[in-house]
């Protein structure tokens, strides 16, 4: 049946598309052209496979078909420019080289995929463009899926992708692995894109839903792929560890009616032990590679403290406060400082935490950030200063963009009212 074949082709595309695009990008030296050619091969598959059946090695078939198109396209393109002519001939030679296509592909696949993702996350692109292009080319998501995930129109996503490809071509970004000296910055851009996707799923900044698990799954898959491609990079394992452990709490994060449930209130029996185990193993790998922990590994180590604690009371808060201390030194930021304040308040009491939070009151980077009044409200309420706490919760509720979170904060404000919850 045709529809069965189409569904099979969709599935194959999801598995193979990044490899095909990456291989083509190496050959034609242009990710935009590579994707077009890969799409052509997909169209050919959609035309032929329902009749002929799916070939034994569909990935190799797609690759070979796309290569043929590449040669044709290069022949036709820009009236036999010498460079293109050479490239086409090169490809043809490769094409004629004998059949161990699989092995030939495998040799290149890892490097091709990495070159592709370093390109789609290139700093020359705006963050939004990096995200869209990476999900599309490296993650195999459709424009529709990306649009749905980020709550923007398909036209917007398509536009971002087109512009990103144009920018890459115009700035002559080479599709290759970054050199040793460039690597830290480029790697951090790649990991940053993956974590941004994860976070958009984990704590949606907009919309009606508090979490969007599908995005977390996409980010996790990308992270796991990166870990297998760069097994010697501790921060890649650090990021995977962080995402696995955070994702382990996804189903405990949503309460009845879709309301947000914060860490301290979560039913820990609902945490996903498989993901926790995978996360702890990834963290061990990051630690085993030596050197001091990077920002992702440190955050993973913090997440691991929570994952290991059977109850909130069992949490090793002094260790978490120390890890935040290390994080604040490595990557100082008001947000990290705010988290450190929370950890300190749990380890050494709300007054100690409040002292740190109050130092952040004038921080311009936190102006309009709902978590500042939210944390302050929490500390004040723990100190029994309920009227001040209510004001803070109300402010926090007015600042958040997420409907579910607003509900939660409004609830906490209401609980500080006289008469609520046994208050006199």
């Amino acid at each position, binding site marked *: 049946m045709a529809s069965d074949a189409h569904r*099979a082709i*969709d599935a194959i595309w999801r598995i193979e598309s990044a490899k095909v695009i990456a291989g083509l990008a190496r050959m034609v030296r242009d990710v935009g052209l590579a994707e077009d050619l890969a799409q052509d091969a997909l169209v050919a598959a959609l035309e032929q496979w329902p009749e002929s059946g799916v070939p034994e090695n569909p990935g190799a078939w797609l690759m070979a078909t796309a290569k043929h198109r590449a040669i044709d396209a290069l022949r036709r393109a820009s009236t036999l420019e010498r460079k293109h002519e050479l490239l086409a001939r090169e490809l043809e030679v490769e094409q004629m080289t004998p059949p161990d296509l699989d092995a030939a592909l495998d040799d290149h696949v890892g490097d091709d995929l990495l070159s592709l993702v370093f390109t789609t996350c290139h700093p020359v692109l705006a963050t939004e463009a990096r995200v869209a292009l990476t999900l599309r080319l490296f993650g195999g998501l459709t424009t529709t899926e990306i649009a749905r995930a980020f709550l923007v129109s398909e036209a917007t996503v398509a536009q971002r992708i087109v512009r990103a490809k144009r920018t890459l071509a115009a700035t002559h970004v080479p599709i290759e692995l970054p050199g040793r000296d460039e690597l830290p910055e480029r790697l951090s851009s790649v990991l940053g894109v993956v974590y941004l996707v994860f976070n958009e799923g984990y704590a949606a900044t907009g919309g009606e839903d508090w979490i969007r698990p599908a995005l977390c799954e996409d980010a996790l898959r*990308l992270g796991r*792929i990166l870990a*297998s491609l760069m097994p010697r990079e501790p921060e890649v394992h650090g990021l995977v560890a962080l995402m696995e452990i955070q994702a382990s709490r996804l189903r405990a994060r949503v309460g009845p009616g879709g309301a947000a449930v914060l860490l301290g*209130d979560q039913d820990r*029996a609902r945490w996903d032990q*498989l993901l926790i185990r995978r996360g702890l193993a990834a963290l061990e790998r990051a630690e085993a590679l030596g050197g001091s922990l990077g920002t992702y590994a440190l955050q993973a180590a913090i997440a691991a403290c929570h994952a290991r604690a059977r109850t909130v009371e069992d949490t090793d808060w002094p260790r978490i406060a120390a890890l935040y201390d290390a994080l604040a030194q490595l990557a100082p930021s008001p947000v990290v400082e705010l988290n450190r304040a929370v950890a300190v308040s749990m380890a050494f009491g709300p007054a100690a935490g409040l002292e740190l939070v109050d130092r952040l009151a004038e921080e311009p980077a936190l102006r309009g950030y709902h978590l500042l009044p939210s944390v302050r409200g929490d500390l004040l309420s723990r100190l029994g200063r309920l009227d001040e706490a209510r004001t803070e919760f109300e402010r926090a509720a007015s600042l958040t963009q997420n409907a579910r979170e607003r509900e939660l904060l409004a609830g906490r404000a209401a609980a500080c009212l006289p008469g*609520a919850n046994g208050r006199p």
Partner: protein
Amino acid sequence: MRFMIIRKADANTEAGVMPRTELLEAMGNYMEEMVKAGVLLAGDGLHPSAKGVRVAFSGGTPSVVDGPFAETKELIAGFTLIDVKSLDEAIEWVKRWPAALDGDPEIEIRQVLEAEDFGAEFTPEQREKEERMRAEIEDRS
């Protein structure tokens, strides 16, 4: 979504025949492909049912029956857990199983239940929490 790929038992697995080098290598490559694709979560092979037991309940009382068990084709010889977008993608992965070397096994694919599949069914603790929340809201009004 998660799927469990269940490799059914056959005469060889039930006899405890260890896989030959070629199969081990092919299986290793296959698993490696799934790791590289970021879809493999966990997986293992199982000892023959001769080393297993069944615990049956009758009126809440357990009784333990030693293996082996007769209905070989219904038994399980190994499992793999993967995280993919669709059943079709899971099928696509299973089609790549090194079947020729593995004695043309029968493989079953089953979807793992996820939180949203439970719908309105929450844990008692959560339900209690919700009820408490409701009560608080009513108190205030």
